[in-house]
């Protein structure tokens, strides 16, 4: 009846996950009860859960990412403590638990922190920057988000029901095959990624179509803000790379469930094929994450320097070059597999070539600052912190692309330090910069600067205190994923890294404090102009938070830096003041399709993991029925009457108008 599921699936003998799970469960229950008792459920349902508004969905993506960041961060803390104490001893985490933790840490941080964070920011900002009302496929957007949430839910379910993979975040076969990992861990891993992968693909298709086909009048390709370009590049990579992940995991699942032989040791399976396929997805994935971050830094550096982005054309060229070359370098992840000198050298050089456009980007940011009037508000701090940190990560990255150096550093703690250097220093700093920068746009008030700056400095210093020791440990021959070790020379560095982790944790606490304090002081921090940073692109041309229709009028773009252009122009001739004529606006209706679909996907995923076949069929039928019902609806849009548009637009129009007429006069 329940497949493989029985009481032994609950880890009654392991206090750590049990207590953690119980705390989370109590927390969720408490929140749910509070929501129901306070009567917020209808609000949540109508305004958020069923919302197809790109801004709301973006916010929910970011919320998901933030919660998962805490989960992944807890894993990181546990790992750093384990390695600090596990010298000539077993530490406090047995291998079967430690191995789950590092696998879950990697999986969660990439798929459920970094991905939803950048997708959330793109969702929130890109339609505003393009001057349009929504993304190309609003309901699918909601489906994509909820499927991502399903994946995250399944991963976290493994904490208390069964186990997570103990194979590392890429689940290399043959270790991940049924014969060496007979538990449900790898199944949790694979199914949650399959389901969230569909969500990511949908988001990718949606954003590519949005950027290519939905731009407001006059928004040529070469007038798009840089963030839109990097969004385009990143989502093109999603569309081209995620199907590879889907296919690869499907093959692994076929091996595990139906006895196929793609990657088994037996009957001619080929493990090297897995390595090639997974990295053919995995390397572009890195750029899927970091390209939007590059876009955020471009926006932030330009805004806070009070200048247009230096070398815009070069930046576009560099972005697209990275997009293409990132597909030609995957083999550098396994130079040490014996591919032969020619192949190694070619892929090594191809990997280095990516450093050229990346370097160009750094220099262009540098020259954007040159001759600027730089304001060191929190988003700018994250950006400068990024530039410094990322260059170090780039250096070690190019070093790892030199095959003979990689022959000694492959899979070492040096590698671990390198990719944290680029992912924390690049993606996470970018996400934080974007979060601070666009928070006022999303919620209508700024974040507290003092706590924000504290968060930056603790995170920045904590990063170096944590990861420089890991670089050194790598140079001392330490390899990754060691549950314990006997080498005395490694130990002091592991202790320093644990201290660094504590500093990083303080940084995270500061971030939380920042949000709490800002919400408390929201009236003082209120932004009525819609343009708190003296911004340059169209998202600042509407109120904060923007109305559901984003713009009362379709913006007409006449040059780059559309909103800046408008402000500069307004300085010279006063803006016409006769009341504009408002029109009816059609907007997509809310739809529970995404949520219902994810509900059935969760049931189906869980049932597949535990081999509960009747439930699989039920979930599958439910998902299909949801789509048919969705296809049968008669009204997919509703009309906001012109009066209503006028009422909403006039609420803050005076503040915004004043800002525009005064702009540039600084």
């Amino acid at each position, binding site marked *: 009846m329940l497949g493989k599921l029985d009481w032994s699936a609950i880890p009654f003998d392991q206090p750590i996950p049990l207590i953690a799970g119980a705390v989370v469960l109590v927390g969720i229950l408490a929140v749910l009860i509070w929501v129901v008792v306070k009567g917020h459920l209808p609000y949540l349902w109508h305004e958020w859960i069923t919302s197809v508004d790109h801004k709301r969905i973006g916010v929910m993506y970011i919320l998901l990412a933030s919660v998962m960041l805490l989960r992944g961060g807890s894993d990181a803390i546990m790992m750093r403590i384990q390695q600090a104490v596990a010298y000539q001893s077993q530490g406090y985490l047995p291998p079967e638990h430690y191995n789950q933790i590092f696998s879950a840490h990697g999986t969660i941080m990439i798929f459920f922190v970094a991905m939803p964070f950048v997708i959330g920011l793109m969702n929130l900002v890109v339609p505003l920057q393009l001057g*349009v009302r929504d993304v*190309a496929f609003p309901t699918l957007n909601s489906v994509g988000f909820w499927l991502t949430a399903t994946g995250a839910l399944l991963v976290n379910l493994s904490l208390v029901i069964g186990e997570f993979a103990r194979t590392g975040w890429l689940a290399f076969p043959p270790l991940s095959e049924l014969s060496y990992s007979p538990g449900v861990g790898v199944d949790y891993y694979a199914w949650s990624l399959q389901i969230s992968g569909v969500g990511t*693909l949908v988001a990718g*298709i949606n954003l*590519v*179509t949005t950027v290519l*086909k*939905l*731009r*407001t009048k*006059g928004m*040529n390709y*070469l*007038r798009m803000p840089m963030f839109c370009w990097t969004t385009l590049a990143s989502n093109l990579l999603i*569309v*081209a*790379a995620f*199907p*590879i992940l889907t*296919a690869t995991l499907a*093959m692994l699942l*076929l091996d595990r469930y*139906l*006895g*196929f*032989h*793609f990657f088994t040791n037996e*009957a*001619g*399976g*080929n493990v090297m*094929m897995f390595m090639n*396929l997974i990295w053919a997805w995995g390397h572009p994935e890195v750029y899927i994450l970091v390209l939007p971050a590059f876009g955020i830094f471009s926006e932030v550096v330009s805004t806070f320097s009070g200048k247009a982005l230096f*070398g*815009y*054309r070069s930046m576009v060229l560099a972005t697209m070059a990275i997009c293409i070359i990132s597909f030609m370098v995957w083999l550098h992840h396994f130079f040490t597999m014996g591919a032969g000198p020619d192949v190694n050298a070619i892929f090594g050089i191809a990997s280095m070539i990516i450093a050229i456009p990346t370097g160009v980007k750094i220099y262009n940011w540098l020259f954007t600052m040159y001759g600027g009037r730089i304001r060191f508000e929190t988003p700018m701090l994250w950006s400068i912190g990024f530039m410094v940190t990322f260059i170090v990560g780039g250096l070690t990255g190019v070093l790892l692309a030199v095959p003979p150096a990689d022959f000694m550093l492959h899979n070492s703690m040096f590698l671990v330090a390198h990719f944290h250097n680029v992912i924390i220093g690049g993606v996470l700093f970018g996400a934080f910069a974007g979060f601070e920068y666009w928070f006022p746009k999303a919620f209508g008030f700024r974040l507290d600067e003092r706590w924000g700056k504290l968060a930056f400095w603790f995170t920045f210093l904590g990063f170096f205190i944590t990861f420089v020791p890991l670089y050194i440990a790598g140079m001392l021959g330490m390899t990754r994923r060691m549950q314990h070790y006997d080498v005395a020379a490694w130990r002091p560095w592991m202790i320093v890294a644990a201290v660094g982790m504590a500093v990083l944790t303080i940084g995270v606490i500061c971030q939380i404090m920042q949000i709490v304090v800002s919400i408390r002081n929201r009236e003082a921090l209120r932004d009525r102009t819609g343009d708190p940073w003296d911004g340059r692109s169209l998202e600042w*041309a509407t109120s904060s938070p923007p109305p559901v229709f984003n*713009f009362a009028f379709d*913006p007409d*773009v*006449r*040059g*780059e*830096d559309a909103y800046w*252009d*408008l402000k*500069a*122009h*307004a300085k*010279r001739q006063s*803006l*016409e003041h006769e009341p*504009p004529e408002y029109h009816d606006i059609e907007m997509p209706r809310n739809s529970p399709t995404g949520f219902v679909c994810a509900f059935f996907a969760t049931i189906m995923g869980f049932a597949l993991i535990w081999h509960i076949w009747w439930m699989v069929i039920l979930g599958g039928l439910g998902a*299909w029925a949801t789509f*048919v019902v969705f*296809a*049968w609806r*008669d009204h*997919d849009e509703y009309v906001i009457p012109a009066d209503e548009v006028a009422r909403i637009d006039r609420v803050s129009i005076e503040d915004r108008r004043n800002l*525009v007429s005064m702009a540039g006069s600084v």
Partner: protein
Amino acid sequence: MSMTATAGRAHADPHHIGRTAEHEGPAPKRIVTAYGFWIFLLSDIVMFSCFFAAYAVLSGQTADGPKGTEIFEPRNVAIETVCLLLSSFTCGMASIAADVRNRFWFYLGMAVTCGLGLVFLIIEFREFADLVSRGYGPSRSAFLTAFFSLVGCHGLHVSAGVLWLLTMMAQVFAKGFRADVLRRMMCFALFWHALDIVWVGVFSVVYLLGSGG
């Protein structure tokens, strides 16, 4: 605040880009939908290409089991191919019928397409069932693993297509040729033709090359 009112040129071209073509604004819904679906199809083809790649890598790994030449039946494959190619034609007819809003020809075209798709699926299913009953299931060797997954993946797509096709017919029956139904019909037609193209690949790589070697 009316933004259409402004025509700033002060910073209009700071990057020395020169004049660029004027952009007219967002594309109409029909274009957007088709464009998005094209992108989905491309990504689906990327997924197929992984299974093709796996087949290319594993096709020699027979683990002392049967080779392609020993199990492929060219006659069946020929019938399957004819079915699919014909169905692409009838699907095209149905699309044209939908465009001119002719119900009779639409239903007829879709029904024939469905019939041909089902014939294809039945032949494929029998081929698979026959192989499994002879002990040549996908667990027999890596070659058979790759063969079953590549051909089976295409078969699953065709099955999903048939399900979609029936849903489309029901939609036209219930809702008529509404704009959104027509957009869906266009996506369906794209999907069905794409499956044809993939089948040409399967036919060439698996069956033609397989029976040659």
